[in-house]
């Protein structure tokens, strides 16, 4: 880690980069520019009112001081000015409300979309599903843990980079169906002026039409638990042609991958392979709650090290069930859709053999498949 005093220097260097700004972004959509204009208008109006009000106040503070030998005036009422300064702010506000209403109605009109994407938040990642296409994937924070814990230098897009960004076409109306698997999240990309809460059990709609290709970053904007700060959003906007190419390729890949998984079901993996794969999956998927050492967080997330489910042989089925289907009414998610059967098998095996849980038991993809089809 760099010494503390070096930090300000580092940041003033980064201050020169384009990304840094002190004002709202103008964004890359018509709506976001409307919003920016509204923001600037109301800001200037407030400035003017402020200058007038504070100006009069300071004038009074300077000119009407007792030390300048003033006798206080006696007036303390004047219905006319009172009506005046009730009406003027009212009219200003009406003036503001009109463009705001127009923009708002525009923002909420999600009809006639070209592309529809279901966005699902869950602790602490996003899942994107393209409607009418066989494409869906999870999108997780890609920043290394070592950067967060200050062991490595922070990269330029620290905390704002993901493994699988969302890809969207430019110039087309994209509709988002925003929902959640667990708590409330909020899907926010400033450049589109889109922020919609992801409410579990409900779908909220939002839309955008991006002008130019580029990479746009955002973050989860609703407190969603421990790693709320580590749930970024990255959108890559491509021209419609590039987008079409991308989606066709990805769809083909995903279909092929699913078929491969089916074939792999009969394959047995060795303990070493299972453990190696399991450790990787565990650290990227489970460790946020159950901790890398399997100790959990007392009172919040149960420990796996030494726990009955992960050590007793007659609880093996239950162990698989918990990982595959989650536990209703708790923070334990269902991982059936998030991991492949091989990965599920590996992670269960890992949990039964790591941190002193030396059961020696192995779980294979076929076992998972059996459990899923029960």
């Amino acid at each position, binding site marked *: 880690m760099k010494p503390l005093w070096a930090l300000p220097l580092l940041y003033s260097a980064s201050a020169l980069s384009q990304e840094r700004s002190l004002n709202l972004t103008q964004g890359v959509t018509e709506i976001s520019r409307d919003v920016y204009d509204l923001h600037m208008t109301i800001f200037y109006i407030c400035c003017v009112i402020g200058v007038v009000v504070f100006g009069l106040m300071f004038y009074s503070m300077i000119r009407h001081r007792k030390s300048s030998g003033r006798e206080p005036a006696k007036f303390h009422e004047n219905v006319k000015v009172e009506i005046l300064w009730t009406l003027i702010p009212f009219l200003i506000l009406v003036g503001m409300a009109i463009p705001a209403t127009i923009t708002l109605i525009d923002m*909420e009109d999600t009809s006639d979309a070209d592309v529809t994407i*279901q966005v699902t938040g869950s602790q602490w990642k996003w899942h994107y599903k393209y409607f009418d296409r066989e494409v869906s994937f999870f999108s997780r924070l890609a920043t290394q843990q070592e950067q967060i814990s200050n062991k490595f230098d922070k990269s330029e897009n620290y905390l704002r980079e993901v493994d699988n960004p969302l890809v969207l076409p430019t110039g087309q109306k994209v509709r988002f*169906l925003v*929902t959640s698997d667990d708590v409330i999240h909020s899907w926010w990309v400033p450049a589109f002026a889109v922020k919609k809460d992801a409410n579990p*059990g*409900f*779908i909220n*709609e939002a839309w955008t039409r991006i002008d130019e290709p580029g990479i746009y970053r955002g973050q989860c904007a609703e407190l969603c638990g421990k790693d709320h700060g580590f749930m970024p959003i990255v959108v890559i906007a491509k021209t419609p042609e590039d987008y079409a190419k991308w989606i066709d390729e990805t769809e083909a890949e995903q279909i092929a991958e699913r078929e491969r998984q089916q074939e792999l079901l009969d394959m047995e993996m060795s303990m070493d392979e299972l453990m190696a794969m399991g450790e990787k999956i565990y650290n990227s998927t489970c460790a946020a709650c159950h901790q890398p050492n399997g100790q959990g967080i007392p009172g919040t997330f149960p420990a796996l090290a030494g726990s009955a489910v992960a050590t007793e042989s007659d609880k093996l089925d239950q162990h698989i069930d918990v990982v595959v289907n989650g536990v209703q009414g708790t923070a334990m998610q269902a991982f059936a859709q998030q991991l492949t059967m091989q990965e599920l098998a590996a992670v269960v095996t890992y949990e039964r053999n790591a941190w002193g849980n030396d059961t020696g038991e192995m779980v294979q993809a076929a076992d998972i498949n059996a459990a899923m089809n029960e």
Partner: protein
Amino acid sequence: MAEQQSYYVPPSSIWPIVGALGLGLIAWGAAHTVIESTSDTQGWGSHVLFAGIGVIVVMLFGWFRDQINETMNGLHSDQLETSYKQGMSWFIFSEVMFFAAFFGALFYARMIAVPWLDGASNNVMTGEVLWPEFVAQWPLVETPGGTTTQAMGWYGLPLINTAILIVSSVTCHFAHVGLEKNKRGQLTGMLSLTIILGLIFLYLQGAEYVHAYEELGLTLQSGVYGNTFYLLTGFHGMHVTLGTLMLIIMLLRVLKGHFTPEKHFAFQATSWYWHFVDVVWICLFVIVYVL
């Protein structure tokens, strides 16, 4: 602005802080009781809870003893009497708002949440994508998650209970009239009748819960219909219990010869409370059961 008599500022008293201690113990105890009863941990929760309730009971006895002694010694001015009455009215207003929260929840669940889950308003996709099988209805006998239950009818027990409470409001009123006209016989008779009606109500309410749980499968876990039903009727039942206890204390005081036709704030407050509880029930009956 009442006419100015010399105002009675009570001397320092131990009871408020005892009351605070009692509430503190109840809060801590209740929290830990809840935690312990829903996980397999053991602890002091329920003991502390009961200790807290004990402390509150002691506090009430002590506080009211002082209070009654002061009234009997004529220390309380008319102005103080007015303060008590206003205080009680505002307290009842706060209770109205407490129930309003639950009525609000019922309104929202019924008029907004449930229809939206079936795709109403701007939630078309909610219904289509997330809950394709779900059909909005009220009472919500099948939840989006698939839990089923049966609705509680309004005739039968609830109707009888409504009648009981309305009659009890009337008897309570006549007890008050008796007090004001100094007809002590009417007072004791009508008051006792009110108490008996209150107790019958509570008994029947209990029977209704048993019926709901055992025959209708309507439980706390059976979705938002059951939730609003139990929370509203449950909190109402707790208020009836409290009101009945207050009436019983009033009866005991009446039997001891307390209260005059002019001065009987405690009695009046109790009767206001009772009427308030009845009004809540009538709203409840109409909104929860009938509609």
